[in-house]
């Protein structure tokens, strides 16, 4: 096995797909800079820089996919989807139903997401639950380099719209792009097992909607996605020292949700804790609980999510975003009750 960084894996999988299929194109703001290796290799007709016109170029990406291309439309930060949400909410997501299954929009919306570097809540949201709320959208959130590459291939192969979210603490070139290394004294809590790891020689797509167990355990199921998984594994080590065995499940996709994996983990442990960097209300954490309840399971439940607008100052931000301490505290309470 070779090793790659998270972002390198995405690029490598994209390069493989672009070399194999001339219908795959990339479009978005600054892509000639952000994807300069692909831009140099595949040229400006396949890596297409766009003006700051998200509503237009995402809408165009949807239609281009309807007309035969397989576009990867880049929305630099998922927060900016607010400007262009109509293309997904009312068009890409509706097409298959409205056309009676006769037409689909096979595009990938690629965006960075997440916080932990002090930029404030207009640039640090995750929004995966908010997007997964819309029927017709697939939402993937990789947590390792291998998954990052394989889920990109899966997204490109899917016959409908897929939102592909790369967390900035995993695809850490974003921190660099935004000036990260140009100063001293600033540290980011980057999960080392997420930013770099083993990848296959040749990329094969992962099936969408299939979770994976990251750590075996018997007393408590911790379920989540993305950076939250790395925090959960860290928390599990602390819990182990306290005598609690935590089972960690990485969903990898927010939509479709892996119902079987959720139910198996919950029925095996009787305790469920969801780690979700997205907002707590009306989101993934409640949905996971509902899935287990609908399956008739009885269990204790807790969640560690983002409850409010992410504030700017690092200290406040740290308190608002899920972290290892919060996971350990909430998990421990489940054993005290």
């Amino acid at each position, binding site marked *: 096995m070779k090793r790659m960084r998270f972002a390198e894996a995405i690029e490598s999988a994209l*390069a493989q797909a672009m*070399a194999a299929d001339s219908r795959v194109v990339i479009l978005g*703001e*600054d892509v*000639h*800079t952000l994807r*300069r*290796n*692909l*831009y*140099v*290799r*595949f*040229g*400006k*007709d*396949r890596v297409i*820089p*766009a*003006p*700051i*016109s*998200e*509503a*237009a170029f995402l809408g165009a990406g949807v239609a281009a996919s309807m007309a035969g291309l397989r576009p990867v439309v880049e929305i630099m930060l998922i*927060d*900016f989807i*607010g*400007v262009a949400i109509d293309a997904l909410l009312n068009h890409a997501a509706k097409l298959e139903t409205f056309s009676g299954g006769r037409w689909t929009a096979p595009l990938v919306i690629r965006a960075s997401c997440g916080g932990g*570097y*002090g*930029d*404030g809540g*207009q*640039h640090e949201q995750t929004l995966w639950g908010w997007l997964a709320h819309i029927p017709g959208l697939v939402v993937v959130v990789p947590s390792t380099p291998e998954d990052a590459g394989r889920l990109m291939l899966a997204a490109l192969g899917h016959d409908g719209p897929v939102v592909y979210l790369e967390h900035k603490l995993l695809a850490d070139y974003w921190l660099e*792009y*935004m*000036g*990260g*290394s*140009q*100063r*001293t*004294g*600033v540290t980011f809590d980057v999960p080392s097992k997420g930013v770099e790891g083993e990848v296959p020689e040749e990329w094969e797509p992962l099936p969408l909607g299939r979770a994976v167990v990251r750590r075996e355990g018997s007393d408590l199921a911790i379920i989540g996605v993305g950076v939250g998984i790395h925090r959960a594994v860290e928390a599990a080590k602390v819990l182990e020292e306290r005598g609690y065995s935590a089972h960690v499940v990485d969903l990898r996709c927010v939509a479709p949700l892996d119902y079987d994996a959720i139910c198996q983990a919950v029925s095996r442990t009787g305790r469920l804790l969801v780690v979700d960097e997205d907002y707590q209300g009306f989101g993934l954490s409640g949905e996971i609980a509902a899935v287990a309840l609908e399956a008739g399971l009885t269990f204790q439940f807790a969640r560690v999510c983002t409850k409010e*607008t992410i*504030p*700017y*100052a*690092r*200290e*406040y931000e740290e308190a608002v975003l899920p972290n290892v301490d919060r996971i350990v505290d909430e998990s421990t309470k489940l054993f005290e009750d």
Partner: protein
Amino acid sequence: MRQTSEPDSWLLYELMLRSRLFEEAVCILWQEGAISGEMHLGTGEEGIVAGVVSHLQDGDAMALDHRGTPPTLMRGVDPVSLLREFLGRSDGLCHGRGGHMHLFSPEQLAASSGIVGASGPTAVGFALAGKVLRPGSVAIAFFGEGATNQGMLLESFNLAVAWKLPVIFVCKDNQWAITTESPSVTGGDLLERVRGFGMPAVEVDGWKVDEVWRVASEGIGRARRGGGPSFIRAACIHLEGHFLGDHLVRIARQPAAELAEMSGPLLRSSVSAKGASIKGRVVSLLSIVGLIGKSFRERASGSKDPIAHTRRVLRSDSARLENLEKRVAEDVQQVVERALGDEVSEVAG
């Protein structure tokens, strides 16, 4: 100064210099890690901001973009609370919860946004409220030329004209949308585009603060008298690129180190199999190198620096100039010391 028809160059120079020195301090604090996140400075835009903001009065509003520091400072927001905001302190302007990209000051009706183009609708709404509640007031929208391809801004042009609102749209045009050359992704001529909405549009060199002041005086005067919106396109450069740590600026300043890191993957890509034709790859490669060269030449020239430009004019009275510069430097120094001090209680946990 508001009552006169001629700009006071000394006053404008002082506004600009104060902002520049403040932001230079911000730059150092950011590099030392005392300020988190991204940092978009307005260094290079001061001529535009001073020329416009110096006309504003109580009841006027400002819709700001991600470079809100110069207008906020020039409008009279306490610089200590502003710097403390950047430092993430609970005694900052927004209690450390907004940061430099999300500055809000209700007293000055100043609101900023990190979403490109968002200052358009905001200024229209401020002007709508102003027309009803504060007749004779105006609203300013500051944005870059990169925002002029954003639908909500174009829609705002139309709204302001259709509702005849007192908005002055101020486009700070540096020709760059982050690392994309704006003309390469923009159709037609911007002034013609704006005039197509039925709005007067003028062009000015943004580094000539006196000229900006004059065109702003005309647009703001018209809006106050109920004559509706207008548009100013003011050319400028960004001395620090899009944000601190901008790759193009870094490469321009330390070409060997930065290019060594980048050229490996770039060259590998240009010889990989199964790509575009060799010519296509060379064109793509050259266009990246071209961007870097352009960025470097702009920065090396210095001729479009509004501070340097005005300074040349004021140099004839060197004693007064020296005095002013000394005083402003001392003031900013004090602001920084006070902001970093413990005079007000530390951040509560």
